[in-house]
């Protein structure tokens, strides 16, 4: 007979207020196999745990149930308690009578009955617990960082400084991300390039960092400590080693297309570096617009390159690499304004997104930093800034606040007024949100020192009117309808998740929230970890963020990765699946559903009627299995079973609740 102990936790008043602890303890004491039932105010505290330990010894318990909060909170705590008292840690079950019971019920009688039923199920499961042993799995001491914006650069630098090798994979020809496109940065107005370029250089020259620009991660297999990634280095058509970055090629190239980096406000060549400070300072050939590749004519760059670096025959290179940890820092996109026709964006050249405005302000931008109206190159006198374009807009845009627009709009006002002190800035806003260090002060400067007219309300429509723009809106404080004649209109366009974030999430096996931002493991307590062990999140890919927040999260993600990479071995969870070969029919349904490719087929031999028969069965690789349980539901005869959560145990739980 099993000797089961049950320990009921009050969780202060969290459980005790809604569940009759004494009644539950008494009922638990009478359950089959239970030889001891007790309760305490905080079972997870030192005192609570020592009560469990002494009961194990005094009552000769061979397993126990803790009725408390979710196992996500304290399962590992109580497993350690068991181990400290000499019990195998997998002989512990948690009955969740907090999240599943006291927190979701009001009626004490009903909650008490439910708590008893939950404990009965846990006791039935515990009675069928078997000892399980964790095995050691070695850790690959290298990290992969996906995305080379400021978030990815910071994470790579921190991990590399701790002594681990890092591969930094960036999709575009240069690292830098959106920060490279910005002019000056709030709230200090230091020039973005001035603080970013040294970081980019540091990343490029760090002995532990390998940059893979113009590259993409195509596939990720494996698991924490032992990921295996397939990286495609797209053909640059220029030899990274030979090129000196002299720039003759892109000077001579006759093919011109719109520059992505300048938000299509300027032209670049088919062979190009996206911006002057690009790292690496080696151009790529955009084969879609190169005359050699489209018409097999030209070849000027190859002819003129003094280093002989241009190589039209270069092919994509596909690398397989192993990593212990992965940091995802793929950043954000800005919302497409197709659905916002009322602002005349795309119809009038003087209506710009905020990112386009950044480029126009920027001294390395399309206008060389001269702030002129795109339509006629004249200095603007009145500029209207419209905030929350697509943010906090459930119907057409995003319901969330993009968080950075209030601040960068204030920055835009200041930069504009610095250039044209006599001009006037108007800002349409819903609310002003400046909760950050020195943020409110910064915003007040825009209002008080630079005289920006902040109008609470919405700008309903922007019409072209002669060579001006007419902005119609409502000042909701006074209730007056407004009409402002503007030279330029700047739209603070919402930040959104990268459009391919769901695909990347699928590739990595991590989750996204309803807006396709990557989801953290816990919004408060584990904000830099993904749900999948060994994968960490940094920057705007997890939600709208400014640079300081991105950098802090990147350093946090790096610290978590460093903790992981510093370990020689990880303990593997022994709750993995196993195949009962005598039941397995070899249909291989399980192989198809296993998300970790942990199942393979093998051939076994057995004797039937004296004849040797070979047949195919499934086999679980315990090092790869993550215990997700998908296979167990795909297996019709129930041949594959998850240790610690066996079919027998689950059926016993169901019976305990229902019968």
């Amino acid at each position, binding site marked *: 007979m099993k000797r089961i102990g049950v320990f009921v936790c009050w969780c202060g008043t969290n459980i005790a207020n809604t569940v009759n602890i004494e009644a539950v303890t008494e009922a638990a004491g009478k359950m089959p196999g239970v030889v001891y039932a007790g309760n305490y105010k905080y079972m997870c505290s030192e005192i609570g745990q020592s009560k469990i330990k002494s009961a194990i010894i005094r009552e000769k318990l061979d397993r126990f149930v803790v009725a408390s909060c979710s196992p996500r909170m304290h399962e590992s705590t109580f497993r350690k308690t068991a181990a400290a008292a000499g019990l195998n840690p997998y002989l512990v079950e948690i009955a969740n009578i907090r999240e599943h019971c006291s927190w979701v019920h009001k009626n004490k009688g009903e909650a008490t009955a439910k708590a008893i039923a939950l404990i009965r199920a846990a006791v039935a499961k515990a009675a069928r617990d078997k000892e399980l042993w964790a095995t050691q799995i070695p850790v690959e001491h290298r990290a992969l960082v996906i995305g080379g914006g400021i978030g990815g650069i910071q994470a790579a630098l921190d991990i590399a400084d701790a002594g681990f090798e890092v591969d930094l994979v960036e999709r575009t020809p240069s690292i830098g991300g959106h920060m490279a496109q910005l002019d000056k940065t709030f709230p200090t107005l230091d020039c973005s390039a001035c603080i970013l370029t040294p970081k980019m250089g540091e990343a490029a020259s760090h002995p532990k960092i390998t940059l893979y620009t113009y590259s993409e991660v195509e596939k990720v297999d494996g698991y924490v400590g032992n990921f295996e990634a397939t990286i495609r280095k797209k053909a640059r058509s220029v030899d990274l080693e030979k090129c000196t970055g002299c720039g003759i090629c892109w000077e001579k190239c006759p093919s011109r297309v719109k520059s992505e980096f300048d938000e299509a406000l300027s032209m670049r060549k088919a062979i190009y570096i996206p911006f002057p400070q690009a790292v690496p300072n080696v151009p790529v050939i955009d084969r879609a617009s190169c005359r050699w590749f489209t018409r097999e004519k030209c070849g000027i760059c190859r002819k003129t390159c003094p280093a002989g670096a241009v190589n039209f025959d270069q092919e994509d290179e596909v690398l397989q690499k192993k990593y212990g940890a992965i940091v995802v820092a793929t950043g954000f996109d800005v919302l497409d304004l197709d659905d916002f026709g009322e602002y005349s964006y795309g119809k009038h050249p003087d209506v710009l997104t905020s990112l386009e405005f950044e480029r126009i302000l920027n001294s390395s931008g399309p206008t060389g930093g001269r702030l002129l109206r795109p339509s006629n190159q004249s200095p603007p006198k009145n500029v209207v800034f419209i905030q929350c374009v697509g943010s906090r807009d459930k119907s057409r845009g995003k319901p969330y606040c993009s968080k950075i627009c209030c601040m960068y709009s204030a920055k835009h006002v200041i930069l504009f007024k610095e250039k044209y002190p006599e001009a006037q800035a108007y800002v349409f806003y819903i609310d002003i949100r400046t909760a950050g260090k020195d943020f409110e002060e910064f915003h007040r400067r825009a209002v008080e020192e630079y005289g920006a007219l902040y109008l609470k309300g919405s700008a309903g429509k922007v019409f072209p009117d002669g060579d001006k723009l007419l902005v119609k809106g409502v000042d909701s404080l006074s209730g007056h309808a407004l009409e402002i004649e503007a030279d330029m209109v700047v739209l603070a366009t919402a930040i959104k998740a990268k459009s391919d974030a769901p695909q990347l999430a699928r590739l990595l096996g991590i989750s996204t929230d309803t807006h396709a931002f990557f989801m953290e493991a816990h919004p408060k307590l584990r904000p830099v970890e993904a749900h999948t062990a060994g994968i960490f999140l940094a920057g705007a890919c997890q939600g709208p963020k400014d640079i300081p927040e991105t950098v802090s999260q990147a350093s946090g993600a790096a610290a978590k990765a460093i903790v992981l990479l510093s370990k020689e071995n990880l303990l593997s969870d022994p709750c993995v699946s196993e195949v009962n070969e005598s039941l397995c*029919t070899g249909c291989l349904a399980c192989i198809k559903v296993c998300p970790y490719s942990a199942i393979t087929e093998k051939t076994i031999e057995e004797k039937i*009627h004296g*004849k040797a028969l070979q047949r195919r069965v499934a086999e679980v690789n315990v090092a790869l299995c993550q215990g997700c349980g998908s296979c167990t539901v795909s297996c019709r*005869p*129930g041949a594959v079973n998850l240790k610690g959560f066996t079919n027998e145990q689950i059926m016993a739980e169901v019976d305990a609740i229902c019968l």
Partner: protein
Amino acid sequence: MKQLSERIKEAAFGSLSSGQVEMVIGWQKGPLWWQSFPAFITDPGETASLIWDPFSVSNLNKYLLNEVPKKKIALFLKGCDALGFNQLLRDGRVEREKVLLFGIPCDGLVDPARVEATGLSKGLLQVKKEREELVFYYKEGQRKAPARDFYYSKCLSCRYPNPVTCDEMLGEAVPCQPLERFANVSKLEAASLEERFTYWSRHFSRCIRCFACRNVCPACSCRECIFDIAEPRWLGKAKESGETLFYHITRAYHVAGRCVDCGECARICPLGIPLAELNRKFIKDINELYGEYDAGADLDKEAPLLTFKSDDPDVSA
């Protein structure tokens, strides 16, 4: 039919006497007019007892699961049987190299119950098929009637009367003119939740859990079925409506996406429970959600319930 019978005997004799196969599985006549049984023949001398008649309805391919051949086994397949064979193949339960398949085009077989219902069974000695007609033999003489009036309903909606797979086809291809197979499903779909629940509860309350529907099914090829396993006991033994519902819902889910719609389960059920309607509801849903998929026939397509595509519809929504 006569001709086909001869060709079956010849094929069986040839493959056994040449040593190509070590066993032939076919049909033999029993003592009564409606009895045509599976026969397992290893001696070439006994192949003359094999027959093909309007009652050769048993699907032979599940018997392969019990055999461990050194060489090959020869087997006769009708259209519906061929679909089931393909499913066994797909589930890894038979080895293609270990079987020699003779295909039989079949335009329909006779349901003895329909013969009984017309009263023709009284004193009936033998039934033969002559082209489109059945000939009923009595001591006193014979009577004729259109064959199609006596066919199993599964035959009337058969979409593959000519086997989709075999090594050698015996006989000429027959025309295919199936009735719409989802007609009843659509009717049920239109009914209210209560009506549907009553409909199925009523039917299932008659089930005696003989498991014949499972035993005959080519998609039910597990070494040990969960309904037979003692620990954990998934299915209780008590005659209790919840247990019977559990059996039927689980069985239907287990064959979902693999049911070839051979109609054997519904045919075999001694209580006439319309299992085909349940199976076809799943088939219809799968077709509508994931695109047309014909288990047993579409061997080159991926099984929709075992594949994940990022554009799969969200069924929960």
